Every structure is written in C-alpha cells, then in structure tokens.
C-alpha cells in the first residue's frame, strides 16, 4: 500500500462516485489516505473502505501514482481475515453472472457479434468467476486467460479482449442513429485511459454522441458495476444516473456494461440498448 505517497491534492475527488453521492471528502481516496497516514487500521475506517466502487478514477488522475484501488482491496482483505482462492475455468466467451442471470435476452446478439468479428463463442463461462468476491476482499484474484470478456466486472479475474473495446474497433458495423448517450465502462477506461480513451473519443466524434467521459477524459460511474451497486447495498444508483444525465438530451442510452445497462434501464426513463444490439445487419 503506497498511501504515504498521497500529497492530499484531492484530484481524486473530481470524479469519485462516493464524493458525488455524499459530498464527503472523507469517503474519497484522499480521506482514506489521510486516515491511513494518521495510523488508523482497517477496522477503524470501515465506512471509508466500503464507500469505494473501484471505478478507478482516483488511480487514473493521481499525480503521484498512488494505487488507491489496490489500497481498498488490501484493506477489505484485512477486514475479511484470510481470503480464499477462487476457482474458475478458461472460456472462449466470458458472459459473467449479470448477463447470464439477469439479461439472458442480450446473449444472442453478443454471440453473433463476437462470431462476426472472428472470435470463438463456443465455450462460455458457466459459474461465477468470483470477481465480486475479489472486490469484497474475500478472494484473492486468480488471473485466467479468456477469449472475449463481456462484463467489465469480470476483468478482475480474466485476461481477455473486452467486448466493448472490440466494438469500438469495429465502428463500421454499428448504427447509432439519433441522439445517443454512450456509457463508457469506467473500469476499463480509467485503468488505462491512454489506451482506451481514443477508441471511445473516435466513437463520440463519429456518431456525435454524448458520453460519461468528463473533462479529465475519464469515465464517471453509476456505482452499479460494483459489489454495492449489484447487491443494492449503500449505493444510490438512481441519483448517480440522474447526475450523469442531468444535462443530456439523448433519446436513448447505449452501453457495453451489463450492470450499467440495468441501472439505465431501471432509472433513466429512456430506452436502453446493449452495444451488440446496434450491429447493422
């Protein structure tokens, strides 16, 4: 944990979902690092530890390369005691629990798209990969190689091509007509903005769509793609969706993140599409 490197500038607060929701500096990376620098232990700062959605905004913007997400994970593991190792299988196509269990209707379009761009979609994941347990600190991550990963949450456990990034590399295949708001997955962009921002910016320019990329070229989150968001505990996803769309005049929302698809479907009041549903015939 390199919390000692934190100089307390507060840049991490600019896009921190916990700060946006509460206005409390304490719940941001800056607040956590201040507490750690003062010698507090994990058990004395549980509220600070569980406020994090692991969107990665703080890591991307930190001028001193403080590894804030890694710090949160380490603190959660400290709270948990001795984390176990997860077991999951290699797969051509990793759908993830959210798609398999809550959005199975999206799977055919995903398979079609993946096959059209030349990837295999034969063997898919069957069980939970344990990414949310990694987030909880209950499980130590075990990186397994995969073909295409459809849910950014599963990138905690799998090394593979992310579906949304592949879609951005094949923009010619898509038809995004009308006023569109494209929700970019924060876990992906914020962990490597120099790698992924250009992809989404190209899409933004080509289709003229609004996005959740902010002035720092980083992605804002709904909080849904986190253990708290998916479990419905302590995260006001509705308010986050309202903040994201506050000035938006988009007629529909498009995303490549299954959990965020649920968030917008439930709270935006606008039609929501998964990116693979927009593939031209």
């Amino acid at each position, binding site marked *: 944990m390199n919390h000692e490197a934190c100089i*307390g*500038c507060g840049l991490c607060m600019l896009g921190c979902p916990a700060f946006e929701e509460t206005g*409390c500096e304490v719940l941001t990376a800056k607040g956590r690092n*201040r507490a750690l620098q003062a010698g*507090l232990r994990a058990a004395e700062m549980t509220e600070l530890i569980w406020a994090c959605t692991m969107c990665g905004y703080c890591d991307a913007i930190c001028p001193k390369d403080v590894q804030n997400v890694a710090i949160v994970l380490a603190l959660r593991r400290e709270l948990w005691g001795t984390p176990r190792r997860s077991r999951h299988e290699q797969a051509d196509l990793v759908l993830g629990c959210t798609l398999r269990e809550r959005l199975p209707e999206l799977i055919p379009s995903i398979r079609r798209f993946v096959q059209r761009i030349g990837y295999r979609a034969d063997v898919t994941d069957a069980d939970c990969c344990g990414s949310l347990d990694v987030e909880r600190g209950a499980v130590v991550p075990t990186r397994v190689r995969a073909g295409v990963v459809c849910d950014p949450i599963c990138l905690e456990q799998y090394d593979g091509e992310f579906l949304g990034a592949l879609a951005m590399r094949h923009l010619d295949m898509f038809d995004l007509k009308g006023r569109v708001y494209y929700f970019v997955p924060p876990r992906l962009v914020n962990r490597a903005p120099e790698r992924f921002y250009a992809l989404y910016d190209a899409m933004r320019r080509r289709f003229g769509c609004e996005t959740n990329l902010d*002035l720092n070229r980083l992605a804002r989150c709904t909080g849904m793609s986190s253990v708290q968001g998916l479990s419905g505990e302590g995260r006001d996803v509705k308010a986050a969706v309202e903040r994201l769309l506050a000035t938006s005049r988009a007629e529909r929302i498009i995303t490549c993140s299954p959990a965020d698809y649920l968030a917008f479907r439930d709270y935006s009041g606008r039609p929501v599409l998964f990116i693979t549903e927009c593939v031209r015939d």
Partner: protein
Amino acid sequence: MLANPDLPIPLRTEPAVRLAYRTDAGQIVEGVPDAVVHASAPETVAALLQWAQRERVPVTCRGGGLTTEGESVTRRGVLLDLKGMNGVLECDGGTAWVQAGTTWYQLAEALRARSLDYISAPLNLLSSVGGTLGVGGIDLNSHRHGCSADQCVEVEVVTPTGEITRAREGDDYFERVMLGYGQFGVITKARMRARRYRPMTVRNFLYADVAPAIEDMMRLVESDAVDACCVITLRDEVVALVVGDEDVPKPLDLRYTTDARFYARLGARYLPVPSRWRDLAFLLRRRKQLRPALRNPLFLRDGRIEDRAIVFSRLIWSYWGDRKIVLADLAVTKANFVATAKAGIEVCKRFLPYFTLYCVMVRKFGDRPRYEMSAIPATKDDHVCGVEFSPLLEGREYPDAHYQAFKNAIYDVGLRFGGTCYRFGGAMKPYVRRIFGDAVVDRHRGYKLALDPAFVLNPGVVFDPPETRA
C-alpha cells in the same frame, strides 16, 4: 460541550472523519477539529452559526481545503465542510448561480455542457467557488478579466450570527464578503459571470533572465496582445514566458532567446563545473517533464488545448505538488515588479537549492472597497503584479521553521517594495498589521466584531480575537 450539543444537525466526531481534516494543502499546520459538520444547505450553516454564537464555539470553514497557511485547519471547535453544497442551480447564458462548495472544476464541467466557461478561476480547479471569492483567484487571463472575485455579481451569505441574506455588486456587505478572507460571513451561493468557451493555443518563449521576460509580459498586457500570459521559471536560469491565444496566434515582438542559444548558454555555464552537473540535470529533467504535459494528446485538438484549465490544474500537482507545499506570493506595483522578483530570487537562493517563480498580472477595477485589505494593493495602477516564490523540494525535507523563515524573508521583500501578499492569514498573520497598517486592520476588525460578536467564524485566522475576560 460538543459531546452533547443542543444542535439540530449531525456532528461527526469519529476519528477517521476528524483526521481527514487534520491539515490543508500546505501540510505544515496541523490540527484535528473536535467535530465536523458536512453542510448540505444554507440552513445547516445558519443553524450551526446560531448555535456557535450562543455557545461560543469556534467554526472553521473549509471548501477545497487548499489553503497553505492553516487557514482551514483547526484544533478547536467545529470544522464546517462546505463541499457538499455543490452544483449549478441555474444558468442564463451570461451568469451562473452556483452553490459555494462547488469546485471550479465542477463549474467548468457544468458550463461546458452549455458551451460556456467561467471568466477567470484559480489555476487549481479543486478550489471551491466560495473559498476563492474570499481571497481572490488568479488565472492566466486575470490581466484582462481581474481576479475571480471580480467575476461575481451576487452572493447568498450566512452571516456569522446565522442569518441567510443576499448581497449584490455595489452593496456594502458584498464588498465586505468579497476578498474578506472568510471573516464576515459564509458564502453559500454565488452568481458568477460566464462566457463562451474557446480552446487555447499555448506558446512558450525562453529567456536567459527574468527581467526581460517580465518586461515583455508587461508590454503584452499593456497592449492587450494575448488572452493569457504568465512567466514561469526554474530557479532563475530557465525562464519561460507562456502566452495563450484563443484566436489564431499572432506574431509577437519579444526579446526571447532561441532554444539553441539558450541551451548553448546553459551548457557553457554548467558543463565546465562538475559540481554543478547535478543542477543542470535538475533543470533539464524538469523542463523535459513540463513540455509533454502541455502537449498531452488527450487534451489537444488541431494543435489547441481543449480544457486548458484541466491541463494546468493537473500540471500544478504533478509538477509542483509535494508532501509540503510552500507558497509565498507577493503583489506589487508595475514599477516594482522586476525588482521584487530579483530580490525574491536572492532570498530563494539563500534558503533553497531549487525553486520556481510564477509571475502574473491582475487587472484592477478602480478602488473597490474589497481591495482595501486584500492581495490587491491600493495603488493607482490599473494592474497588480503577482510573484509567487515556491521551493521545489526534490525529495528533500526541511524543518517547518526553515519554511517559515523563507516565507518571512519573502514577505519582508514585499514590505520593502510596498506590496501586499496573497496569503496573509493563518501562519502569516503576524504580517497583517505590518502590511496593511493598524488603522486599516482595526477598522476591518471593527466590522468583524459588529457582525460576529462572539468572534466564532474562522477566529484568529486574520484578526486577533477579543481578549478573554477573566
């Protein structure tokens, strides 16, 4: 008293919460408050201040927490965090009605969605609007537009006795609160002027000495030739005049030196002396770091910086940010601009191996009452000249007393040249009477006592509290 207060708002007293406020951006002054209040509405602030007056509990305000002299740090009473009151409530195209805990970044983002921009803001976009209005707010375009406090047309303020009121440009109370260092009320909303957003082309020109760079900047300002400008130095050896243009850049008549001649001169000065190679490496490394930051492809479009404020704001922290941030800023007349910079450089050399200067000019709008006891000196000039001296610590650590002695020596330079300074509160309070004189300070302290009878709002930051009765 704080353990069981008769107060209808939650006081946070957990160690993790209080410790988050134990210092400010300077990280030199430390103090853990007895409790923290996260304000979400002016009514919360009003209730807190009414209670504080009654119970004589000190209340210290914090917006962005970017003070460097401990102005937003306290060891007693309640720390009032205003950042929860953030958001743009309305925007009519020409002005925006903003909650005071909004950071300039949040304001920029909200205005950009309407293709608008604020007029001028502090380079550090993490400052809150309310906190900035209390001290000034200097931008690279302040030579044209003045400080941020001069872009405000109306405020909602909670008085120190807990009344919610409004004041507009021209009102006496408005002039008290603007540049009032948080002494006369808590700003909870502000109506800020806005303008159309325009990207900027940034150029920089190298000089071998600070004097011609400053003189060229003064000429650019007098002829209103550029939209933004400042002088930045590494020690007094790498001197850059940075100019920004919102239109197509025009040729400028400047006395800069070419890069080739500049580096040849630098080499001639350093290379023959092996003991100075380390200094040369420092200068070259720092310069190498600065250029890519200004040319980051993420923020460039067609050669122009989009979201220049974001670029500069992040640059500040990656380039100048350190475990301790020591800033000594002077504000002087045009006649004394170069001499102040030169004298300050000599002070820097006495105290520190590596340092930087940041020189800007700020337009002044007549003799507004708000300027009387502020960083804007009472002169007849139409511009004020600012010089910020800042150590580049490069991993070194010095005792806090060393930093204080450095700041004192710089402020003494300011006094010698009849100037004022940007940060005169907190740890620099002993300079308040020396800068402004007893008559001015006593008059402003009188205003404070009339508005804040129990002296609870940001007590001791600028004025001495009333003597405690036995």
